[in-house]
Protein backbone atom coordinates (compact mmCIF):
# COMPACT_ATOMS: atom_id res chain seq x y z
CA UNK A 1 0.00 0.00 0.00
CA UNK A 2 1.38 3.38 -0.93
CA UNK A 3 1.97 6.09 1.65
CA UNK A 4 -0.92 8.08 0.21
CA UNK A 5 -3.25 5.11 0.44
CA UNK A 6 -2.17 4.43 4.03
CA UNK A 7 -2.80 8.09 4.88
CA UNK A 8 -6.26 7.97 3.29
CA UNK A 9 -7.10 4.77 5.12
CA UNK A 10 -5.94 6.25 8.42
CA UNK A 11 -8.00 9.38 7.82
CA UNK A 12 -11.07 7.27 7.06
CA UNK A 13 -10.58 5.23 10.21
CA UNK A 14 -10.21 8.40 12.28
CA UNK A 15 -13.44 9.80 10.83
CA UNK A 16 -15.27 6.56 11.41
CA UNK A 17 -14.14 6.38 15.05
CA UNK A 18 -14.82 10.03 15.89
CA UNK A 19 -18.02 11.09 17.61
CA UNK A 20 -20.71 11.83 15.06
CA UNK A 21 -20.59 15.58 15.10
CA UNK A 22 -20.50 15.97 11.36
CA UNK A 23 -23.31 18.50 11.26
CA UNK A 24 -23.38 20.29 14.60
CA UNK A 25 -24.74 23.34 12.87
CA UNK A 26 -27.95 21.39 12.31
CA UNK A 27 -28.66 21.71 16.03
CA UNK A 28 -27.88 25.41 16.10
CA UNK A 29 -30.79 27.78 16.11
CA UNK A 30 -34.01 28.36 17.98
CA UNK A 31 -36.31 25.58 19.06
CA UNK A 32 -39.57 25.38 20.93
CA UNK A 33 -41.01 22.55 22.93
CA UNK A 34 -44.01 21.20 21.05
CA UNK A 35 -46.31 22.92 23.51
CA UNK A 36 -44.29 26.15 23.46
CA UNK A 37 -44.67 26.38 19.68
CA UNK A 38 -48.37 27.04 20.28
CA UNK A 39 -47.78 30.06 22.53
CA UNK A 40 -50.02 32.98 21.59
CA UNK A 41 -49.35 36.74 21.60
CA UNK A 42 -50.66 36.67 25.14
CA UNK A 43 -47.56 34.75 26.22
CA UNK A 44 -49.79 31.86 27.23
CA UNK A 45 -51.34 28.98 25.39
CA UNK A 46 -54.76 29.49 23.98
CA UNK A 47 -57.51 28.46 26.34
CA UNK A 48 -57.23 24.74 26.12
CA UNK A 49 -58.93 23.32 29.13
CA UNK A 50 -58.51 19.75 27.97
CA UNK A 51 -54.78 20.10 27.65
CA UNK A 52 -53.91 22.31 30.56
CA UNK A 53 -52.77 19.65 32.94
CA UNK A 54 -50.45 18.03 30.44
CA UNK A 55 -48.73 21.06 28.91
CA UNK A 56 -45.62 21.04 31.09
CA UNK A 57 -44.61 17.43 31.73
CA UNK A 58 -42.59 18.18 34.86
CA UNK A 59 -45.67 19.62 36.59
CA UNK A 60 -47.03 16.25 37.54
CA UNK A 61 -48.26 15.23 40.96
CA UNK A 62 -48.49 11.62 39.79
CA UNK A 63 -44.71 11.18 39.56
CA UNK A 64 -43.20 8.75 42.10
CA UNK A 65 -42.90 11.41 44.79
CA UNK A 66 -42.40 10.58 48.40
CA UNK A 67 -45.43 11.64 50.43
CA UNK A 68 -43.50 14.53 51.91
CA UNK A 69 -42.31 15.80 48.51
CA UNK A 70 -45.79 15.51 47.02
CA UNK A 71 -47.18 17.59 49.88
CA UNK A 72 -44.51 20.23 49.33
CA UNK A 73 -45.29 20.27 45.61
CA UNK A 74 -48.99 20.71 46.27
CA UNK A 75 -48.23 23.58 48.64
CA UNK A 76 -46.00 25.22 46.03
CA UNK A 77 -48.68 24.91 43.35
CA UNK A 78 -51.27 26.40 45.69
CA UNK A 79 -49.10 29.51 46.00
CA UNK A 80 -48.39 29.84 42.29
CA UNK A 81 -51.29 32.19 41.62
CA UNK A 82 -49.63 34.92 43.70
CA UNK A 83 -46.03 34.31 42.67
CA UNK A 84 -43.68 35.94 40.19
CA UNK A 85 -40.57 34.50 38.63
CA UNK A 86 -37.32 35.83 37.22
CA UNK A 87 -36.83 32.85 34.94
CA UNK A 88 -37.21 29.14 34.51
CA UNK A 89 -33.98 27.60 35.79
CA UNK A 90 -33.18 23.92 35.22
CA UNK A 91 -34.86 21.54 34.56
CA UNK A 92 -37.98 23.64 33.87
CA UNK A 93 -36.31 25.59 31.05
CA UNK A 94 -36.11 22.35 29.04
CA UNK A 95 -39.85 21.70 29.27
CA UNK A 96 -41.49 25.11 29.27
CA UNK A 97 -43.13 27.40 26.75
CA UNK A 98 -40.15 29.62 26.18
CA UNK A 99 -37.90 29.06 23.15
CA UNK A 100 -34.45 27.51 23.48
CA UNK A 101 -31.38 28.35 21.46
CA UNK A 102 -28.78 25.62 20.91
CA UNK A 103 -25.20 26.70 20.31
CA UNK A 104 -23.12 23.64 19.47
CA UNK A 105 -19.34 23.54 19.26
CA UNK A 106 -17.00 20.57 19.42
CA UNK A 107 -16.10 21.41 23.03
CA UNK A 108 -19.44 22.40 24.51
CA UNK A 109 -23.12 22.91 23.95
CA UNK A 110 -24.86 26.02 25.25
CA UNK A 111 -28.62 26.11 25.71
CA UNK A 112 -30.10 29.57 26.21
CA UNK A 113 -33.51 31.06 26.88
CA UNK A 114 -34.67 34.66 26.66
CA UNK A 115 -35.13 34.58 30.41
CA UNK A 116 -31.32 34.58 30.47
CA UNK A 117 -31.08 30.94 31.43
CA UNK A 118 -27.72 29.58 30.23
CA UNK A 119 -26.79 25.91 30.41
CA UNK A 120 -23.20 25.04 29.65
CA UNK A 121 -22.68 21.38 28.76
CA UNK A 122 -19.06 20.35 28.41
CA UNK A 123 -18.56 17.83 25.60
CA UNK A 124 -14.76 17.82 25.65
CA UNK A 125 -14.51 14.59 27.58
CA UNK A 126 -14.18 16.01 31.07
CA UNK A 127 -15.94 14.40 34.00
CA UNK A 128 -18.22 16.04 36.50
CA UNK A 129 -16.41 17.76 39.33
CA UNK A 130 -15.96 15.80 42.52
CA UNK A 131 -19.00 16.28 44.78
CA UNK A 132 -17.09 18.52 47.19
CA UNK A 133 -16.08 20.82 44.33
CA UNK A 134 -19.46 21.23 42.67
CA UNK A 135 -20.92 24.72 42.50
CA UNK A 136 -24.65 24.44 43.11
CA UNK A 137 -26.50 26.82 40.77
CA UNK A 138 -29.96 27.30 39.28
CA UNK A 139 -28.79 25.49 36.12
CA UNK A 140 -26.48 22.91 37.64
CA UNK A 141 -23.28 21.39 36.34
CA UNK A 142 -23.46 19.38 33.11
CA UNK A 143 -21.24 17.17 31.01
CA UNK A 144 -22.30 15.53 27.78
CA UNK A 145 -21.20 13.34 24.93
CA UNK A 146 -22.46 12.42 21.50
CA UNK A 147 -23.76 8.96 20.64
CA UNK A 148 -24.37 9.32 16.94
CA UNK A 149 -27.27 11.72 16.54
CA UNK A 150 -27.99 11.72 20.27
CA UNK A 151 -26.65 14.18 22.82
CA UNK A 152 -26.42 12.54 26.24
CA UNK A 153 -26.20 14.92 29.21
CA UNK A 154 -25.55 14.32 32.90
CA UNK A 155 -26.52 17.17 35.23
CA UNK A 156 -26.03 17.54 38.99
CA UNK A 157 -25.77 20.35 41.54
CA UNK A 158 -29.05 22.09 40.71
CA UNK A 159 -30.02 24.55 43.42
CA UNK A 160 -33.35 24.24 45.21
CA UNK A 161 -35.77 25.81 45.37
CA UNK A 162 -35.32 26.71 41.72
CA UNK A 163 -36.41 29.83 39.85
CA UNK A 164 -39.85 28.96 38.49
CA UNK A 165 -42.67 29.23 40.98
CA UNK A 166 -44.18 25.89 39.95
CA UNK A 167 -40.89 24.00 39.67
CA UNK A 168 -41.07 20.49 41.09
CA UNK A 169 -39.46 20.07 44.54
CA UNK A 170 -36.42 18.00 43.70
CA UNK A 171 -33.51 17.98 46.12
CA UNK A 172 -29.99 19.16 45.38
CA UNK A 173 -28.88 15.51 45.41
CA UNK A 174 -30.78 14.89 42.17
CA UNK A 175 -29.05 13.51 39.08
CA UNK A 176 -30.63 14.28 35.71
CA UNK A 177 -29.79 12.21 32.62
CA UNK A 178 -31.01 13.58 29.30
CA UNK A 179 -30.95 11.94 25.91
CA UNK A 180 -31.74 14.37 23.08
CA UNK A 181 -31.98 12.73 19.67
CA UNK A 182 -32.35 14.70 16.47
CA UNK A 183 -34.76 12.63 14.42
CA UNK A 184 -35.31 15.08 11.58
CA UNK A 185 -34.27 18.52 10.36
CA UNK A 186 -36.79 20.24 12.59
CA UNK A 187 -37.45 17.75 15.37
CA UNK A 188 -35.58 16.59 18.46
CA UNK A 189 -36.98 13.91 20.73
CA UNK A 190 -35.80 14.08 24.29
CA UNK A 191 -36.16 12.19 27.49
CA UNK A 192 -34.99 13.10 30.96
CA UNK A 193 -34.53 10.53 33.71
CA UNK A 194 -34.56 12.04 37.17
CA UNK A 195 -33.07 10.22 40.14
CA UNK A 196 -33.59 11.91 43.47
CA UNK A 197 -32.93 9.81 46.57
CA UNK A 198 -34.69 12.39 48.74
CA UNK A 199 -37.94 13.26 46.94
CA UNK A 200 -38.58 10.36 44.55
CA UNK A 201 -39.17 6.72 45.40
CA UNK A 202 -37.97 5.57 41.94
CA UNK A 203 -36.32 7.07 38.85
CA UNK A 204 -38.79 9.19 36.87
CA UNK A 205 -38.49 9.52 33.08
CA UNK A 206 -40.16 12.44 31.32
CA UNK A 207 -40.34 12.88 27.55
CA UNK A 208 -40.32 16.09 25.56
CA UNK A 209 -40.35 16.86 21.82
CA UNK A 210 -38.72 20.01 20.45
CA UNK A 211 -39.53 21.60 17.10
CA UNK A 212 -37.61 24.27 15.25
CA UNK A 213 -39.00 27.79 15.62
CA UNK A 214 -40.67 29.05 12.48
CA UNK A 215 -40.41 32.79 13.13
CA UNK A 216 -37.17 33.19 15.09
CA UNK A 217 -33.57 32.69 14.06
CA UNK A 218 -31.95 33.98 17.27
CA UNK A 219 -32.91 34.94 20.76
CA UNK A 220 -32.60 38.50 21.98
CA UNK A 221 -31.85 38.94 25.67
CA UNK A 222 -33.06 41.83 27.79
CA UNK A 223 -33.61 42.67 31.41
CA UNK A 224 -37.02 42.88 33.04
CA UNK A 225 -36.76 46.66 33.20
CA UNK A 226 -40.40 47.20 32.28
CA UNK A 227 -42.07 44.92 34.81
CA UNK A 228 -45.43 46.64 35.25
CA UNK A 229 -47.08 43.75 37.07
CA UNK A 230 -48.04 44.75 40.61
CA UNK A 231 -48.93 42.44 43.44
CA UNK A 232 -50.57 44.02 46.47
CA UNK A 233 -52.48 42.11 49.11
CA UNK A 234 -52.63 39.08 46.84
CA UNK A 235 -54.19 40.99 43.94
CA UNK A 236 -52.34 41.44 40.67
CA UNK A 237 -52.65 44.61 38.62
CA UNK A 238 -50.95 46.45 35.75
CA UNK A 239 -49.19 49.75 36.47
CA UNK A 240 -49.56 52.58 33.95
CA UNK A 241 -46.46 53.11 31.80
CA UNK A 242 -43.65 55.23 33.13
CA UNK A 243 -43.54 58.40 31.10
CA UNK A 244 -40.13 59.85 30.19
CA UNK A 245 -39.07 62.73 32.40
CA UNK A 246 -39.51 66.16 30.86
Amino acid at each position, binding site marked *: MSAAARLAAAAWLLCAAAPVLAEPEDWNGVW*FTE*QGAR*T*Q*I*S*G*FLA*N*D*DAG*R*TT*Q*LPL*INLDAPWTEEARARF*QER*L*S*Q*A*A*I*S*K*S*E*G*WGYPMMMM*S*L*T*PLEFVVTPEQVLILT*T*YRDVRRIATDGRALNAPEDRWVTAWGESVGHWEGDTLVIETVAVRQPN*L*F*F*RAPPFSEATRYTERLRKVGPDRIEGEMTIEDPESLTAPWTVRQVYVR*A*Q*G*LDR*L*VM*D*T*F*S*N*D*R*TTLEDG*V*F*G*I*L*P*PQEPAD
Partner: protein
Amino acid sequence: MLGAARRESEGARMRIPVAATILALAAAAPSASAHHSPVMFDQTKTITLSGTVRQFQWTNPHCYIQLVVDGTEWNLEMGAPVYLDNLGWRPSTLKAGDRVRVTAAPLRSGANGGLVLDVVSLDGKTIGRPS
Protein backbone atom coordinates in the same frame (compact mmCIF):
# COMPACT_ATOMS: atom_id res chain seq x y z
CA MET B 1 -68.33 52.32 15.17
CA LEU B 2 -64.68 53.31 14.96
CA GLY B 3 -63.15 54.77 18.07
CA ALA B 4 -66.20 54.10 20.16
CA ALA B 5 -66.03 51.99 23.22
CA ARG B 6 -67.35 48.55 22.64
CA ARG B 7 -66.94 46.43 25.69
CA GLU B 8 -68.62 43.13 25.40
CA SER B 9 -68.54 40.34 27.84
CA GLU B 10 -68.87 37.19 25.86
CA GLY B 11 -69.99 35.45 28.98
CA ALA B 12 -68.74 32.67 31.10
CA ARG B 13 -67.49 29.62 29.31
CA MET B 14 -67.17 27.68 32.52
CA ARG B 15 -70.08 27.45 34.92
CA ILE B 16 -67.88 27.26 37.99
CA PRO B 17 -67.87 29.76 40.86
CA VAL B 18 -65.06 32.28 40.55
CA ALA B 19 -63.33 31.22 43.76
CA ALA B 20 -63.33 27.63 42.65
CA THR B 21 -61.98 28.65 39.26
CA ILE B 22 -59.07 30.52 40.85
CA LEU B 23 -58.10 27.52 42.94
CA ALA B 24 -58.41 25.16 40.02
CA LEU B 25 -56.24 27.32 37.80
CA ALA B 26 -53.66 27.80 40.53
CA ALA B 27 -53.31 24.07 40.89
CA ALA B 28 -53.72 22.87 37.36
CA ALA B 29 -52.80 25.59 34.90
CA PRO B 30 -49.15 25.09 34.05
CA SER B 31 -49.45 26.96 30.77
CA ALA B 32 -47.95 30.09 32.29
CA SER B 33 -45.13 32.20 31.07
CA ALA B 34 -42.17 32.27 33.43
CA HIS B 35 -43.06 35.67 34.82
CA HIS B 36 -46.41 35.30 36.52
CA SER B 37 -49.51 33.20 36.65
CA PRO B 38 -52.39 33.86 34.23
CA VAL B 39 -54.76 33.76 37.17
CA MET B 40 -54.68 37.58 37.43
CA PHE B 41 -56.85 37.59 34.31
CA ASP B 42 -60.36 36.20 34.14
CA GLN B 43 -59.95 33.79 31.26
CA THR B 44 -63.58 32.76 31.47
CA LYS B 45 -64.49 36.12 29.94
CA THR B 46 -63.39 38.18 26.98
CA ILE B 47 -63.85 41.88 26.33
CA THR B 48 -63.59 43.65 23.00
CA LEU B 49 -62.09 47.12 22.94
CA SER B 50 -62.06 49.33 19.84
CA GLY B 51 -59.84 52.35 20.22
CA THR B 52 -56.69 54.22 19.34
CA VAL B 53 -53.17 53.14 20.24
CA ARG B 54 -51.38 55.73 22.37
CA GLN B 55 -48.27 53.62 22.94
CA PHE B 56 -46.91 50.17 22.09
CA GLN B 57 -44.15 48.92 24.39
CA TRP B 58 -41.83 46.22 23.05
CA THR B 59 -40.24 45.34 26.36
CA ASN B 60 -39.42 42.54 28.78
CA PRO B 61 -40.97 40.85 30.61
CA HIS B 62 -44.08 41.88 28.66
CA CYS B 63 -45.16 43.97 25.71
CA TYR B 64 -48.00 46.41 26.37
CA ILE B 65 -50.59 48.28 24.36
CA GLN B 66 -51.86 51.55 25.80
CA LEU B 67 -55.26 51.83 24.16
CA VAL B 68 -57.54 54.85 24.46
CA VAL B 69 -61.19 53.94 24.32
CA ASP B 70 -63.68 56.80 24.59
CA GLY B 71 -61.17 58.91 26.48
CA THR B 72 -60.23 56.13 28.90
CA GLU B 73 -56.82 54.50 28.71
CA TRP B 74 -56.46 50.74 29.10
CA ASN B 75 -53.29 48.90 30.19
CA LEU B 76 -53.20 45.82 27.99
CA GLU B 77 -50.55 43.19 28.63
CA MET B 78 -49.08 40.86 26.03
CA GLY B 79 -46.45 38.14 26.08
CA ALA B 80 -42.73 38.77 26.01
CA PRO B 81 -41.30 40.14 22.73
CA VAL B 82 -39.92 36.72 21.81
CA TYR B 83 -43.41 35.21 21.52
CA LEU B 84 -44.67 38.11 19.42
CA ASP B 85 -41.54 38.03 17.26
CA ASN B 86 -42.14 34.37 16.50
CA LEU B 87 -45.66 35.24 15.36
CA GLY B 88 -44.52 37.95 12.97
CA TRP B 89 -44.90 40.98 15.21
CA ARG B 90 -42.19 43.64 15.27
CA PRO B 91 -41.56 46.76 17.39
CA SER B 92 -43.12 48.80 14.57
CA THR B 93 -46.24 46.67 14.24
CA LEU B 94 -48.34 49.15 16.21
CA LYS B 95 -47.81 52.90 16.24
CA ALA B 96 -49.44 55.75 18.11
CA GLY B 97 -52.62 56.70 16.29
CA ASP B 98 -53.34 53.24 14.91
CA ARG B 99 -56.93 52.18 15.34
CA VAL B 100 -57.39 48.61 16.46
CA ARG B 101 -59.88 46.21 17.94
CA VAL B 102 -58.43 44.22 20.82
CA THR B 103 -59.92 41.10 22.30
CA ALA B 104 -58.70 40.59 25.86
CA ALA B 105 -59.24 38.65 29.05
CA PRO B 106 -60.02 41.28 31.70
CA LEU B 107 -58.15 41.82 34.95
CA ARG B 108 -59.92 40.12 37.83
CA SER B 109 -59.46 43.30 39.85
CA GLY B 110 -61.91 45.12 37.58
CA ALA B 111 -59.36 47.80 36.67
CA ASN B 112 -59.04 48.98 33.08
CA GLY B 113 -56.63 46.33 31.95
CA GLY B 114 -56.40 42.88 30.50
CA LEU B 115 -54.46 40.21 28.66
CA VAL B 116 -54.42 40.66 24.88
CA LEU B 117 -55.73 37.62 23.02
CA ASP B 118 -56.17 39.08 19.53
CA VAL B 119 -55.59 42.36 17.70
CA VAL B 120 -57.29 43.40 14.47
CA SER B 121 -56.46 46.59 12.60
CA LEU B 122 -59.31 48.94 11.86
CA ASP B 123 -57.07 50.69 9.34
CA GLY B 124 -56.64 47.70 7.06
CA LYS B 125 -53.10 46.87 8.17
CA THR B 126 -51.80 43.34 8.46
CA ILE B 127 -50.82 42.58 12.05
CA GLY B 128 -48.44 39.72 12.65
CA ARG B 129 -47.93 36.75 10.41
CA PRO B 130 -51.03 35.40 8.75
CA SER B 131 -51.81 32.04 10.27
